Each structure stands twice: as C-alpha cells, then as structure tokens.
C-alpha cells in the first residue's frame, strides 16, 4: 500500500501534478488500494445525496459515507469534532466561523483541474466584470487563505482555497399563488397584515435575520450599511419590528428544517414564507401550486463548498482531490442543476443535461417537454418557465449573501428574545 502511495506522491512532487490530475487517469495507478478507502462526508441535506455516494463508488472506486445534518449541527461538528469527518460540505458563512479553528486544510488550486472554469462569484466575486458585489459574506471573501497552513482569509486568488465551491442558489420568498390571488413583488409583503397568521420565517438565526433585513429594508423602515454585518442598533430595530409583528399574530409558525417548510406550505397553514428552492419543488410535486417569487429588491443568496479535514493525508488526501475533481467534472453539477441549484462549473454540467433541461434550468427558456427531477418526478411541463428566469438574471440580482456578523452573539441573544416574545 505505502509503495503505491509513494509513487503517486513523488509524481506530485515532481510537478506532474496538474497533468496527472487534469487527465484524470489516476485511478489506474492505485486502483487496487483505493477500494479500501472510505471518506466520511457530512453536510446539510441539500447536497448530501446518496446518489452521489453511489456514483462515486462506481466512477472512482472508493466509498463515500454521507451524514446529513442541519446547518447548526454542521457548524458545531466542523468546529468541534475535526476527527469525525474527512470532508465537510459546508456553507461559506459557516466557513467564516470554522476556518479560523484550523480544523480544515487549505486546498492547492493547481490540483483542481477545472479551477479556471469555476464561476467568477467564487474567485473574484464578480459574475460578470460589471457585477456589483453584494452585501454579506460573499463567497470569494472567505474562499482563499494565505498558504497551506493558513487560518486567515485573503482577498486575492492565492492558489490556496478554503472550500471548493460545489452548489449555490438565490433564495427568495415562496408563496401559494392560489391562496394569495394577486401578484407579490416585494419582500415587504411578508409583514403585510393581509397575511396575518399565514406567514412564516425560518428559525435559523443567521439566515432568518437576513430575511428580516430584506423585509425591513423593503418596507423602508431601516437602511442598512451592510445587511450581512449589522450594528447592534440595526439589530435592535429589526428585531423590534418583527417582535411587534409576532405579537400581533402575523406568523403561523417558524420552521427549522426543510420538511417543516414543505408541510407548512403544502397544508395551507402558511401562504408566504422564507423558503428554499427544493422545498418549492417538493410542494409542487404534490400537485400544489407554489411559486419561488422573484422580488424587486433581489435575492438572498448562499453558496456551499467542500472542505478537507486537517487530518486527511497520504492516499486518503489524494482520493479527496480525486473526488473534488470528479465533483466539478459535471455529473454532480448536472444532478444538482436538475434540482434547481447551480453548479460551480456550469459548462461541465451542460454535458450531463439535455438541451431542454439546460434551457429550462440555466437559460430561463420555456420548457419544450416535461422537465423531470433526477428522481423522475415531473417538475414542469411544456411551455413552463423557471421562476426568476435565467442564471444571470437570478445570480446577477443577489442583494445579500448569507453571513455571520461581528455582532453574532448579540444577534443570537436578540433572536432568543424574538422566539420567547
């Protein structure tokens, strides 16, 4: 076993790394040993898919063990139990919290074959050269570190990445058009008394506060310097508005997990709420109308990536790089895009999608035929358009990225007050 590893490591040392990896023939070198490798990955439910693990076994030969947890638990585990995982599938704002603990190791971008094709959002922050960088924890601000042992963040593309971007999306409010019966155009509608007792917001403080800020700003109540990094005064004002609304009975419930949000919407308990894209899909697949409503103030966006545990070394580390390269090579991207997310390297995903799927999901074109989910459920029929339209229209209108604030602890205490109010 060790002999094999040395072969490969010395190859990497001699600088043949880029060639070896980009050509992707590596499995043949250590095809025997790799079968014994097991990588333990954990993350939020969005990308921890068993189908991915199955495909990894098929394409790469090694075993990938998946554990799905909620965002709080993910943060907790990444920060406190570095030995319990090999690969952390986390969001960028979680990375801001976890990276300084030194539990993850920097990744050498020269070993990432498709690095140059990764969307600009994750490299210099700009989708197109003219894009304005949104507020909050924009992925590129926590995407790079100074070197192999770095626990800091650097602004430029340093060649050492903290997370390899895998999946991202633009979030907005979900609505039940059949129960509302009129157009919804602004975030402010969440607190519209018309929806008293029929609104909901998510009970994950770091994300919920963003949705709150989008609403308060849309109402014209508060002008934020940076919604992703509020002052205590801004937090107080935001919470005051929402505590008042809660006491007035505006909210039916709060939700913390994906399925709770689906149930609230599908049962009609709630007609307008903060929601995640696949939850909309889940409601629709029950035959219930549900729209991921684009709003004039823009989207609250998030991005996830995979990070490597500091404990990974030797052949397991090589396998992890192998996995990352495979991840960006298109199959997973296609799978995720057909669920409504975006892949970090869209052009490789295109090869794994039909022209109609690509047109519907990425280009915002009307579907020519039925659009199916990766598991075969019908999500849209001929003539349907994706809510919000094309990739550039959606990701180009991001108002704020999910973030963790400097005043996070203060915010969390205020959040507890909101829940107890």
């Amino acid at each position: 076993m060790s002999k094999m590893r040395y072969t490969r490591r010395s190859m990497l040392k001699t600088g043949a790394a880029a060639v070896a990896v980009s050509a992707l023939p590596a499995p043949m070198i250590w095809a025997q040993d790799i079968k014994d490798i097991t990588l333990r990955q954990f993350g939020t439910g969005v990308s921890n898919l068993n189908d991915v693990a199955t495909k990894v076994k098929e394409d790469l030969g090694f075993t990938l063990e998946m554990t799905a947890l909620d965002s709080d638990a993910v943060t907790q585990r990444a920060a406190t139990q570095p030995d319990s995982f090999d690969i952390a599938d986390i969001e960028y704002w979680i990375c801001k919290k976890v990276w300084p603990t030194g539990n993850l190791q920097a990744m050498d971008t020269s070993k990432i074959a498709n690095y140059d094709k990764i969307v600009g959002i994750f490299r210099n922050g700009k989708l197109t050269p003219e894009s304005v960088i949104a507020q909050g924890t924009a992925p590129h601000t926590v995407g790079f570190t100074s070197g192999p042992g770095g626990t800091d963040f650097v602004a430029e593309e340093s060649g050492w990445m903290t997370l390899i971007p895998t999946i991202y999306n633009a979030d907005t409010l979900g609505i039940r058009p059949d129960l509302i019966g009129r157009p919804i155009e602004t975030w402010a509608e969440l607190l519209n008394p018309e929806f008293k007792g029929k609104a909901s917001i998510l009970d994950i403080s770091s994300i919920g506060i963003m949705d709150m800020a989008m609403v308060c700003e849309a109402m014209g109540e508060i002008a934020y310097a940076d919604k992703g990094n509020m002052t205590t005064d801004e937090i107080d004002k935001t919470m005051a508005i929402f505590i008042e609304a809660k006491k007035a009975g505006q909210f039916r419930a709060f939700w913390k997990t994906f399925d709770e949000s689906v149930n609230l919407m599908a049962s009609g308990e709630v007609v307008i709420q903060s929601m995640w894209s696949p939850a909309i899909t889940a409601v629709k697949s029950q035959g219930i109308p549900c729209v991921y409503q684009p709003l004039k103030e823009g989207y609250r966006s998030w991005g996830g990536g995979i990070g490597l545990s500091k404990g990974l070394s030797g052949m397991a580390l090589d396998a992890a790089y192998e996995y990352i390269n495979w991840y960006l090579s298109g199959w997973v991207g296609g799978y995720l895009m057909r669920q409504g997310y975006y892949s970090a390297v869209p052009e490789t995903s295109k090869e794994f999608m039909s022209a109609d799927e690509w047109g519907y999901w990425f280009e915002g074109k009307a579907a020519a035929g039925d659009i199916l989910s990766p598991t075969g459920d019908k999500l849209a029929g001929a003539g349907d358009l994706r809510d919000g339209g094309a990739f550039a229209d959606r990701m180009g209108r991001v108002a704020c990225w999910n973030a963790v604030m400097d005043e996070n602890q203060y915010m969390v205490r205020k959040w507890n007050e909101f829940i107890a109010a």
Partner: protein
Amino acid sequence: MAKSLGYPKDISAKMKGAGMERFLKSPNITGWLLASPLALVLALFLILPIILIVVVSFWSATEFSIVPDFSFENYAFLFGSSVTYTVFLNTFKYAAITWAITLILGFTIAYFLAFHVRSQTWQTALFLLCTIPFWTSNIIRMISWIPFLGRNGLANETLISWGVIDAPLEWLLFSDFSVILAFVHLYTLFMVVPIFNTMMRIDRSLLEAATDAGASGFQTLVNVILPLTKPGIMIGSIFVVTLVMGDFITVRFMSGSQSANVGRLISNDIALLQYPSAAATAVVLLGTVLMMISAMLRLVDIRKEL
C-alpha cells in the same frame, strides 16, 4: 443471590485464606459490595456528567471555541436577562397545567380500572389498551396531531361540517393549546400507572368498612382512597413534572417554534456552540427541578407509604 456470590467467595478463600472469607462474609461488607455496581454506574454516568456540566457552566466561550475559566458571566447574563424569566415562567406554566390535567385524567382512569372493572382479565386488557399509543415513538405520537389540528385539518373540517363553527379555529395548532394537548397525550400514562398500582394495593376490606360505617361513595373516595393513593399520585407527579420541565421538542413542534421553554433555550445555545451558557442554564434548570421534587417529597413520604 447467595449462590452466585458463592463462587468468587470460594476462590478468594482458597487464595487469600480464612481471614478474607470472614471479611467478605461480614454483612456490612456484603451490603457495600452489592450496592457498589449500581453506585459505580451512577457515579460514572450520572454524577460525573453533572459535575462536568457544572464545571463547564463557569467556562467562557467565543464564537467557535470554549475556554476553561472560572467566570460568573454565564450566570450573570442568565439572571440579568428578561428572556430567562419569561422562558422559566412559560415552562412552569406548561408544567402546572399539564400536571393538573394529567392528574385528573390519570386518577379517573386508574380509579375506573381499579374499582369499577371487576374482572381481572378485563382490567389487564384495558390497562394494555392504555399503553397501545406507547408502541410507537414519542415524536410520531406528537407529530400526528399536526395534520389533525391544522387549519384544513380533520378537527376543523369536522366542526365546520357539523356547523359548529364558520371559520377554521386558528388556535388549535401552533399555540399553547396544542403544546399542552400533546403533553397530556404523551404523559397521562405516567400518571395512570403509579396511581393504578397504589390503588390495587388498597385493602378492599377498608372500603367495605367505610361502607359499613355509612360513608357514601364520594366520602369513601375522598377520605379513604385519596389519602391511600397519595404515594402513587406523587410518583406520577414527579414523572410528569420532570418530563415537562425538561422537554424541548414537543414545545418546538407543537408551538411551531413560536413559544420557548427552558429546554429550547438550552438547545438553541448548544446549536450555536455556546456550551458554557447552555450548561449554566441546565444547572439552573436542574436546581429548580430538584427543589420542586424535594418540595413534593415533603408532602408525602413515598417510602413509608408504599
């Protein structure tokens, strides 16, 4: 018991001689030895973790790490925050209401089983019937209320079709009502079982004596059965009160995350990696519950009356 102890005793006697045997045979030592496995388990899995929680409650925390320390900051914040008082008050409210309802229900059901159902077969059968809901998990029993009580749920639709109400009742779900309903559903059995048990131990001749002495059914209930059932009531009450005080998931689901109790406060802290603050809250909760239980035990001496 004596037989199983025989083997090690023989072996040790052979090895260490008669002195050792006498030592092991002394009743004092046997008692200690018999108690030691349980004591050891309790020390390891109960006392030690509690000590750890107390220790951690004095530590300080940054956003993603906890630092050993001896600071009263967590307690200062806890006792200085109005949220703590609101939340504790809310928890007491849930515990008190749930206790009162489960007591009335539990006592009535146990009374029916013990004194009205004559045949032992039926008694057993009905008692088993009470436990049927416990064949599935706690969470399932709780969550199944949600579609039932919802705006378009079975309860509302039935009431509307009967013409009792015109519009769906909003307070059925995601309210204090639904939280307490779930608690009562989950914990009534914990009241029934001990009360039923003590009622079955009541000497029936006492009831006959009461009747002979001219007591009415109600007088017998109040003056004979109730006092004799006290230990059962107290055991059931301890179960219910501690379970409700320590709960967090029922409140979260049934209130739609809109109400808070102490358990949720702790779970929120843990989720945000604020272990020291969570530990401090846990210590205060533990203290509160212990005080409640010791007050309850003052009222009835369980051991004496069992």
